[in-house]
Each structure stands twice: as structure tokens, then as C-alpha cells.
């Protein structure tokens, strides 16, 4: 069984700080990590591999340094990885990204595609379903459990107030929540293998079959008109007094604002 896991390298947005003076984002020095939902997808694939055997293939689209997260995937136990990197892919929105990844997946071939629900920098949750559409596969979102049953995949999907248990014939695509599992650590030997023994193939624009009109900035129906820091709300009053004074302060303020 062949499983492709789509992995994105993202800045650790939990570590990003706003410059207190200018109100702008301080991006420098922010470490790059494997997107947490994607790590959970990779872990899910590795568990299927542990249980019933499978070939786990990592795939990423990004700048050259995205190689780091693919090496991490190999160190965790993926069998091989592909990096799609080319200037031509740059500036892609979710349509162009999902088209590009789908083209690569079609070429590599697989039974199951696992992706994270969303990336912590884009937060759209659109690429997974987009890939499924381009490949003509069913997509099962928000998986909190995945099981293989013969040539079917059975997924427990977490909707807002219900859990759906859904069965689909493979090939299929499943998007995974980071709550699904606790990803394993790499092993030191795995790290050495990732750099010395395992295959990491780099593909440029010409290595995949795709039309120019579906890649990169030119292939993106949406584009960013502008980005700006959030308007900083003026802070109110903060006091550091005893408990009784604090409580009185709160009650007075709530009355003042007609909340009480």
C-alpha cells in the first residue's frame, strides 16, 4: 500500500512576536517547523505502516529549505520524499498549490493521501480538499481516527456537533487534525538514515505535467491586495492591588459600563 503525506514547512507562528514600537511582525529568527497537522498526518501514515505495512512517501511544495521538514519526515520513518521547488511555483494560492501537488501525486501514484487539516500560517484548510478534487478522489476531512479495511478507508470525522463514521473506497484523501495522535520522536539512527540512506527527490516545474496557467502566482485566482498588522486595541486600566480592592474595581467598572 502506498501512502503519500503532504507536508508543509511553516514558520512557528506561536513564536512570532509583534514589534511593540512599530506594530509589525518580527519574522526574523522565527524557527521553521513541520506544520503540526501535517505531522499528525505523517504519524497516522506511520502507524498504518507499523500495523499492516505500507510505503510512506512525504511530499512538499516550497522553497529549497523545505527539505528540512522532509528530512525530518524520513527520520521519523517515511520511506522516501519528494520536494517540489521552483520559482515558477512561488506565490501560489490554494488553487495553484493544490493543482501542483495533485500533479505530483498523480505521477508518483498512491492508494491514500493524508494531509493536515490546515497550516498554521495560511489557516485555510483548502489545499487538501482541492487536491482531492483535482485527482477525482473522495476527501474525508477532520479525521480523528483512520482505519484501513481491505481496499476501503474508514474515517471518524469530527463535525461541529457530531462525529460521522464514513467509509470510502481508496484511492482517497483524508485530512487530519493534530488532535488525532501524539507524533513519535525521530530516532538518532533515523536522522542519520534520513541524510545518508534514504531518497529525497527534488522536482522542478519541468519534472511534473501541469499547465502554466495552474501554477504559481499567475495560476492563482486569489491574490493578496495588502497585509497589515491588526489595529492594536488601546489597553484599559490594569491594577495590582489586594483582592478586595480588585473586586470592587471590577464591580464599579461593570456598573459604569451598564453591564450590571
Amino acid at each position: 500500500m502506498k501512502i503519500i503525506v503532504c507536508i508543509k514547512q511553516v514558520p512557528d507562528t506561536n513564536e512570532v512576536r509583534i514589534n511593540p514600537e512599530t506594530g509589525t511582525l518580527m519574522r526574523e529568527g522565527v524557527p521553521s517547523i513541520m506544520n503540526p497537522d501535517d505531522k499528525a498526518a505523517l504519524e497516522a501514515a506511520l502507524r498504518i505502516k507499523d500495523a499492516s505495512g505500507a510505503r510512506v512517501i512525504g511530499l512538499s511544495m516550497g522553497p529549497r529549505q523545505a527539505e528540512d521538514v522532509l528530512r525530518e519526515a524520513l527520520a521519523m520513518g517515511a520511506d522516501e520524499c519528494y520536494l517540489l521547488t521552483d520559482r515558477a511555483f512561488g506565490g501560489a494560492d490554494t488553487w495553484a498549490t493544490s493543482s501542483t501537488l495533485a500533479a505530483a501525486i498523480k505521477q508518483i501514484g498512491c492508494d491514500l493521501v493524508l494531509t493536515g487539516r490546515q497550516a498554521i500560517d495560511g489557516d485555510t484548510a483548502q489545499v487538501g480538499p482541492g487536491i482531492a478534487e483535482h485527482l477525482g478522489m473522495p476527501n474525508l476531512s477532520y479525521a480523528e481516527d483512520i482505519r484501513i479495511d481491505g481496499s476501503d478507508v474508514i474515517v471518524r470525522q469530527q463535525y461541529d456537533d457530531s462525529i460521522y463514521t464514513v467509509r470510502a473506497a481508496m484511492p482517497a484523501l483524508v485530512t487530519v487534525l493534530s488532535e488525532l495522535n501524539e507524533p513519535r520522536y525521530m530516532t538518532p539512527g533515523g536522522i542519520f538514515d534520513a541524510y545518508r540512506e534514504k531518497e529525497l527527490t527534488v522536482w522542478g516545474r519541468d519534472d511534473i505535467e501541469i499547465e502554466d496557467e495552474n501554477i504559481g502566482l499567475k495560476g492563482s485566482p486569489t491574490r493578496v491586495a495588502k497585509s497589515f498588522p491588526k489595529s492594536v486595541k488601546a489597553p484599559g486600566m490594569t491594577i495590582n492591588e489586594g483582592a478586595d480592592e480588585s473586586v470592587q474595581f471590577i464591580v464599579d467598572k461593570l456598573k459604569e459600563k451598564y453591564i450590571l
Partner: protein
Amino acid sequence: MDFTLSKEQQMARQLFRDFAVKEVEPLAREIDEEHRFPDETVEKMHKYGFMGIPFSKEYGGQGCDTLTYVLAVEELSRVCGTTGVIVSAHTSLAAGAIDSKGTAEQKEKYLRALNTDKLGAFALTEPDAGTDAGSQRTTAVSDGDEYVLNGSKIFITNAGPADIYVVFAMTDASQGTRGISAFIVEKGRPGFDFGLAEKKMGIHGSSTRELIFTDCRIPRENLLGREGKGFGLAMGTLDGGRIGIAAQAVGIAQGALDKTIAYVKERKQFGRAISKFQNTQFQLANMATEIESARYLTYLAAEKKDTGERYSYEAAMAKLKASRTANYVSSLAVQLHGGYGYIQDYDVERMMRDAKITEIYEGTSEVMQMVISGSLLG
């Protein structure tokens, strides 16, 4: 001369750091206060291959280099000196001895187990044989297809939780140090018991106990290396162990420095953070410089070991320097914390207590000076 870590080593260091912060640090204070051996941590470390880093994949090891192993001990020790020495004694000494002189069958049976799910210990020291390690009183008498062990060992790290012990004993007292042999002894062997756990100044979570052999019979094939060659094996293995302890000491020192930097930025006296005072700044500069030099001596010794050439000199220097540094830095760390440094809620007092032993075990600083001067004077 390339002083940068390779990509693999950088990634490995990050792995060890993440594991240390997430799995080891939360328990550090607790295992010290309760004098509790961290079984759950050792199990996790076995699971992720941290207990067999520098050994061949042929016997279930991770197939990495010594420097990667040093990074593991350093990062673990940074948050918990106890966890660092558990790994070091197990890897450098117990597994190291078997890797060095074990037969293929012994490696298959014991090294594989140590790499994957069993803990090891190294038993050389006796009540009357510390620095004078050659004065072994424990005896191993050949009897048919067995050896019979009698005697006792003290201050053995991992004693109790460990399943596999490399034990040194006198097979021929008339030969002096050339009458010493090494054996592999499994826990549970009749006649092999443990004494009470020692109450130590520091590394409280590390299990340090006496081993007592009373007519303990072990199979002949558990002789490790050749009869009479045990002392050489012990000395050679300890060279590797010194690199591990140096790594532990560097880690403890770095951990103490990290805590101190965070503290001095927050602590305010005389209307400002004490990090603004020049004395504090100068002390931090000194601490960092000492740590960096100890670190690179340690990395140098690790690299030298992997070339296959003799490395006793570098290993002794690394341990001598690193252990002194750990004591200097951790003591100064307590001082810079002021009164709070003496309080157990703040980790630096534990680090200071943990640091002391690095100048003593696996060869005292005096022995290190003997090795180094011996090399200088030829």
C-alpha cells in the same frame, strides 16, 4: 578543520533538546526530591534509540557517531544531571565494554538487549579499590563450565534497575593487574544481590548501590574478553566513559547558565534588573567562556575516539576541564541567584549538588592529571 555540526548532528541535537524539555525536565525536581529512579524516562529513551546511539545497527544500535551520543548526554544533563549519567554509564561503560571486547554471540545477546530494552551497569570500584582500581578483591574462580564470583562492588551507577552488569574480578591474584578479568553478569543470578541504595549529595535519582556476590555462578561463556585482560578493558572503557561524563558536566553547566541568565533579567534590585550590573555581566561572560572551552574539548575527544587512534589524553582533558567548569559555573549560578539560589524551588542548587560528582567518578580529577602529565612527560 570544521567546527560546525553536520546537518544530521544539528537535527539530532534538536531532537535531544525537544525530548529533554518535554519528557525529562518536568520530572527533574521530583526524582531528585523523591530519590526516585526515572523508569518511565529510561523506557522512553530505549524506545527512541537514545540508549544505543553510537553502536552498530548490526546489533540494534543507532549507527551514529560518538559526537551525536555526546550531544544526547549534554542536552539531557542540561535539564537533569541524573538522566545524563544514567545514559552515560549505560552507554559508554556497560555497552561500551561489550561492544569493545564482546564475541559476536555476546554482542548479539547482550549488546542488542542494551541497545533496545535493557539497562546496563559497570562494576569495577570496590570498598578498597577506587583510584587504585587494580587492587581487586572480588574473585572469580573457574569451576568446570562456570566461574564462581565472590566479593562486593560499591558505588555502582544503575545498580538495581540494570539487568546486565559488566563485573571485574581477580582470576589470578598472583598476576596483579594482569590477573583481572571481566565478566557479564545478569541480574537475578543466584548469589548476586544488592546492598542498600547510597544517600548521595546529588544525582539523587540515579540508583547507586553495592553489588554483593556470594558464590555466584555464571556460565563460562560470560567471560568478556580474555582472562587476565580485564584491567586493560576497564581502562580502555573508562576512556570512553570520561567523554560521557565530560558531556554530562558541560550539560549541567549550560543548564545552570541558562537558568541564571533568565533569572538576572527578571530580578530587580536598586530599581533595575541585576543583569544591568557589570559584576553580573562579567560573571556571565566568564561562565560562558568556560563552558564553551569545555564543550569543544569534549567534542574534540569524541571526534578523536571515532578515528580509531588513542584518545585517552583528550578524554582526560575534556573530563578534567568540564567537571571543573560544571562546579565553577553551578556554584556561581547559585551565588548570582542570591538567597533564592539556595532554595530548592530554584533548580540551580540541584545543579550545584549534581556537579560535584563529575570531578570524582570514572576517574577523579587527580587521575585525569596523572593521565595528562603522563602523556606530557612520556
